């Protein structure tokens, strides 16, 4: 990835973030012009930047967003939540594209369709709003100074032009229509039968494409594996002298076996200007040639049909070959026979098509095979059934019993078939206009006449012929359709026929409105190109809560470098700590007192520098909590809208800083908490009003620094937590026993929500209620040496607080001694160290306690906690060294043998087998090379 692209990505993320923020702000202050201007500027810059690269999908969406924002900025479109949703969606889409660019270096072809769709919905918003505003309040353009149009006006006109073209291009795609040479058609047919997908591509470049540096002709020539192509002009240019050569009137049409991916790639800049349709094999079957003096021996037809019917394709093929040798190759019938031969070769099982083809030799009408495809797929009977009284078609062959065994059934079956034929013909006619229309109508009429003759209703034939003449004269199938409808009206209810005839005639499967094959095919691309009218607007399920990437982007230095520096400084601290040991040895082992003093002096200097370095690197790693806070406005908005709640979010202390790792680790727990507050805490507006509260709930997220810790509070004024309900639930879930039910204080009860597997939600929603949230929050916070607590008052609200260390890179620990071993205790847990005389120890319920500053402090022996059999050793004055620590908000005294100094260490969490060891938060290397085990009093007690 080149540097420019890298910079673009990092900048764009900032822009996306900015756009999101501005949209949020705009929502509360929709009239603010400076906000809108800034928002427009963001989108505008982003679009401009994206244009530097080859990301048409991104630029297209951004361009539409820009136009929309511009319209909003000038008051042509009023600001609405819909609009915000659309823009946020668009920005999410852009974010997804950026992720993809970052990982793969390019944008996959699959995004083109989404991009077009998003662009379209954005433009629709713009178009809808502008037509509305035009209708209601005509813009006073005429009044303003026409001689010097303002920039705004120009922009406005520019935007208007663009709307027009969108409407234009979308409408003008036609049906696939092609006239192919027999050889080309046969090649295409072979490809299609052979499993290749043949695509019909129609490319209508937008009129102003030449001004965008596009060369549609060149683009069209890039399509690989093109078997047929054609270029036409859209309309006849009235007078050549007035022709605008720089307004594209071209249409390119191709038939290709290129893959969908290849096509998408070639046309990725103009996906809205192409139509891509897959063409089925049989669509290529068409015959050409002179029909003059072209009659085929009737006996040949009957014989060949017989062969096909008997499944003797070899003989059928042979007989056709012989016939071909006998007749002139340029004849229409020869063309047909060549096709018949090809179809027998490639589709030996498709007897229906083969029969229909051969039978055409007799009817001499160009038959539209596509209609047969439809009928074939729905297994209804062949069109020209009645033409072959002596040759039964596969369908009849399949059901001989139904036809012969029962006379009444035969009649009914015949009538059923009769109406099926009518229906089928109607389907054939309902296929939208195509070059085959005339032939199709003739074929239909012939079929109808034959059908009526076969059912001895000769009196209708004249009417049919008349309808056909009318249809041909008007070049519309309407007269014939009307006639068929009339005939069908006279039909007995179709269900009756079916009851009477246990014959498989799925009439209901081919009612007139069922789209026939060609129609289905034409629908295919519309779904691909998102031009379907359905409301399937894309939603890019990337909400603020899911993005973790933003955090890393604000450090413009690679994080690995900082981490490495951090580790080096950590090692430096450890190495520095070795100097006092050295000084000690110099004095005691080698007896050089002066050297020892010098080492100590030097140590003081190194110590100062090392500490400063450490502080500085801490500063570098510090990040304001706003990095997590900034995603909350969007998240709260999304969730509260989903829940139908009104929430006012207040953020305080966003500039409070903490170590990057802490901030990052905090983001997931905080999201859980905020979600919980929104889902469980805050009530819906009507409930709030009924409770006498403001309809809009308030959610306060506040960060403050307390000495070396960061305190984060999430306060809502919702319904609060009922301790009794919590106790009951906890009891039901087996989290507490019956005695605890009585014993627990309200505060303790409320804190049960942090217990594993606890959930009060009745219904599990996608927001919360799976009974993992708060448990996960607690463990995540404790993992980074934080604590979490909750206070709540029923009906008034809930306050949840997280207390976190500022940094967790270097830990200050106090070294203590017990049972001739040394241990470390994190200094941030140590409240004080005291020496308690034995006389001041007292037992309450067999528990050792003492009174410190008027408070009773329980005492625990470290040896006992570690399951060491020794008693704690007092000093010469019979005083016990007692370490007072704060655990879960309470003071507890831990009796040890002696205190040592405090040191800065790099705490390494224990891994492997030792990882599961409770009671220790990790180990560290001391200056003399020994290992210090660091206790975790929280787990120990």
């Amino acid at each position, binding site marked *: 990835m080149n540097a420019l692209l890298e910079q673009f990505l990092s900048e764009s993320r900032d822009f996306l973030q900015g756009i999101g923020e501005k949209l949020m702000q705009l929502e509360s202050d929709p009239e603010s012009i400076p906000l809108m201007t800034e928002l427009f500027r963001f989108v505008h810059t982003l679009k401009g930047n994206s244009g530097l690269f080859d990301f048409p999908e991104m630029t297209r969406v951004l361009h539409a967003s820009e136009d929309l924002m511009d319209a909003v900025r000038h008051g042509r479109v009023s600001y609405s939540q819909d609009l915000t949703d659309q823009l946020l969606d668009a920005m999410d889409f852009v974010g997804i594209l950026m992720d993809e660019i970052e990982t793969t270096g390019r944008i996959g072809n699959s995004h083109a369709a989404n991009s077009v769709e998003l662009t379209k919905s954005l433009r629709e918003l713009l178009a809808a709003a502008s037509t509305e505003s035009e209708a209601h309040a005509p813009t006073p353009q005429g009044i303003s100074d026409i001689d010097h149009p303002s920039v705004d006006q120009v922009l406005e006109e520019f935007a208007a032009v663009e709307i027009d073209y969108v409407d234009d291009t979308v409408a003008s795609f036609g049906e696939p229509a092609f006239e192919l040479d027999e050889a080309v058609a046969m090649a295409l047919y072979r490809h299609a039968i052979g499993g290749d997908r043949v695509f019909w591509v129609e490319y209508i470049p937008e009129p102003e494409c030449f001004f965008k540096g*596009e060369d549609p*002709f060149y683009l069209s020539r890039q399509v690989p594996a093109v078997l047929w192509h*054609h*270029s036409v*002009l859209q309309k006849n240019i009235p007078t*050549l002298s007035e022709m605008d050569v720089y307004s*594209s009137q*071209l249409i390119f049409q191709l038939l290709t076996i290129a893959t969908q991916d290849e096509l998408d790639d070639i046309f990725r800049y103009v996906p809205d200007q192409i139509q891509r349709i897959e063409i089925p094999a049989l669509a290529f079957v068409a015959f050409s040639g002179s029909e003059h003096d072209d009659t085929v021996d009737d006996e040949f037809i009957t014989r060949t049909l017989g062969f096909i019917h008997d499944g003797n394709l070899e003989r059928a093929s042979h007989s056709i070959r012989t016939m071909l040798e006998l007749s002139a190759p340029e004849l229409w019938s020869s063309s047909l026979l060549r096709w018949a031969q090809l179809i027998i070769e490639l589709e030996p099982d498709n007897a229906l098509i083969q029969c229909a083809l051969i039978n055409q030799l007799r009817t001499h009408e160009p038959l539209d095979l596509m209609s047969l495809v439809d009928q074939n797929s729905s297994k209804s009977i062949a069109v020209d059934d009645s033409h072959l009284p002596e040759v039964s078609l596969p369908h009849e062959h399949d059901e001989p019993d139904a036809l012969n065994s029962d006379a009444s059934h035969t009649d009914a079956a015949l009538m059923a078939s009769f109406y099926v034929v009518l229906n089928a013909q109607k389907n054939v006619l309902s296929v939208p206009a195509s070059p085959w229309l005339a032939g199709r109508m003739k074929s239909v009429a012939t079929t109808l006449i034959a059908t009526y003759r076969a059912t001895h209703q000769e009196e209708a034939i004249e009417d049919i012929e008349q309808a056909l003449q009318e249809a041909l004269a008007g070049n519309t199938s309407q007269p014939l359709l009307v006639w068929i409808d009339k005939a069908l009206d006279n039909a007995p209810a179709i269900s009756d026929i079916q009851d009477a005839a246990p014959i498989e005639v799925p009439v209901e499967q081919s009612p007139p409105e069922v789209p026939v094959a060609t129609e289905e095919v034409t629908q295919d691309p519309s779904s691909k190109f998102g031009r379907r009218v359905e409301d399937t607007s894309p939603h890019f399920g990337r909400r603020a809560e899911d993005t973790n990437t933003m955090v890393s982007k604000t450090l413009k230095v690679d994080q690995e470098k900082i981490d490495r520096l951090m580790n080096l400084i950590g090692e430096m601290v450890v190495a520095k700590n070795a100097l006092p040991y050295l000084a000690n040895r110099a004095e005691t082992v080698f007896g050089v007192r002066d050297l020892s003093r010098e080492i100590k002096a030097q140590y003081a200097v190194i110590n100062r520098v090392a500490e400063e370095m450490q502080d500085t690197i801490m500063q570098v790693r510090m990040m304001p909590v706003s990095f997590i806070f900034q995603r909350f406005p969007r998240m709260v908005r999304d969730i509260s809208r989903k829940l139908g709640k009104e929430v006012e979010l207040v953020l305080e202390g966003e500039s409070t800083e903490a170590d990057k790792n802490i901030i990052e680790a905090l983001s997931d727990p905080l999201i859980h908490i905020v979600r919980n507050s929104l889902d469980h805490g805050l009530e819906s507006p009507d409930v709030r009003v009924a409770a006498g509260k403001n309809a809009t709930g308030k959610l306060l997220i506040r960060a403050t620094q307390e000495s070396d810790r960061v305190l984060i509070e999430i306060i809502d004024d919702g319904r609060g937590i009922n301790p009794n309900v919590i106790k009951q639930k906890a009891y039901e879930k087996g989290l507490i026993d019956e005695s605890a039910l009585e014993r627990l204080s309200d505060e303790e009860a409320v804190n049960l929500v942090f217990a594993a597997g606890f959930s009060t939600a009745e219904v599990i929603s996608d927001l919360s209620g799976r009974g993992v949230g708060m448990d996960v929050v607690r463990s995540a916070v404790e993992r980074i040496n934080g604590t979490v607590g909750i206070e709540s008052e029923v009906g008034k609200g809930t306050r949840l607080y997280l207390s976190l260390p500022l940094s967790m890179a270097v830990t200050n620990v106090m070294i203590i001694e017990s049972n001739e071993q040394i241990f470390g205790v994190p200094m941030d847990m140590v409240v004080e160290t005291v020496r308690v005389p034995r006389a001041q120890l007292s037992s309450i319920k067999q528990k050792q306690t003492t009174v410190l500053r008027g408070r009773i402090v329980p005492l625990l022996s470290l040896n006992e906690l570690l399951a060491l059999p020794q008693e704690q050793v007092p000093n010469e004055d019979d005083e016990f060294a007692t370490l007072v620590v704060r655990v879960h908000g309470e003071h507890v005294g831990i009796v040890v043998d002696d205190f040592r100094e405090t040191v800065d260490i790099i705490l390494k969490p224990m891994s492997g087998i030792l990882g599961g060891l409770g009671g220790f938060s990790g180990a560290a290397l001391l200056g003399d090379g020994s290992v210090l085990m660091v206790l975790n009093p929280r787990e120990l007690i």
Partner: protein
Amino acid sequence: MAIEYKKSLAVFTEFVGVEEAENLLQWLLKNPKGKINLAACEHIHAANLQVLMAIKPQVAAWPADEDLHRWLAVLEK
């Protein structure tokens, strides 16, 4: 120049860019019987293509490039 205009013949060479389209149209309007020689032409910009398609001048020589020849077959009368 990618198009060299002679008395009644326009000779196309190599790539004929978009900027030629206007001149080509004017020349063809002025010389209704003018022929075009495409033999040395490899590609013409779509703007030129549409001029040729609108006027359909007589083609004196078809492009040596077979693909282009096939595409320009629409100019055959």
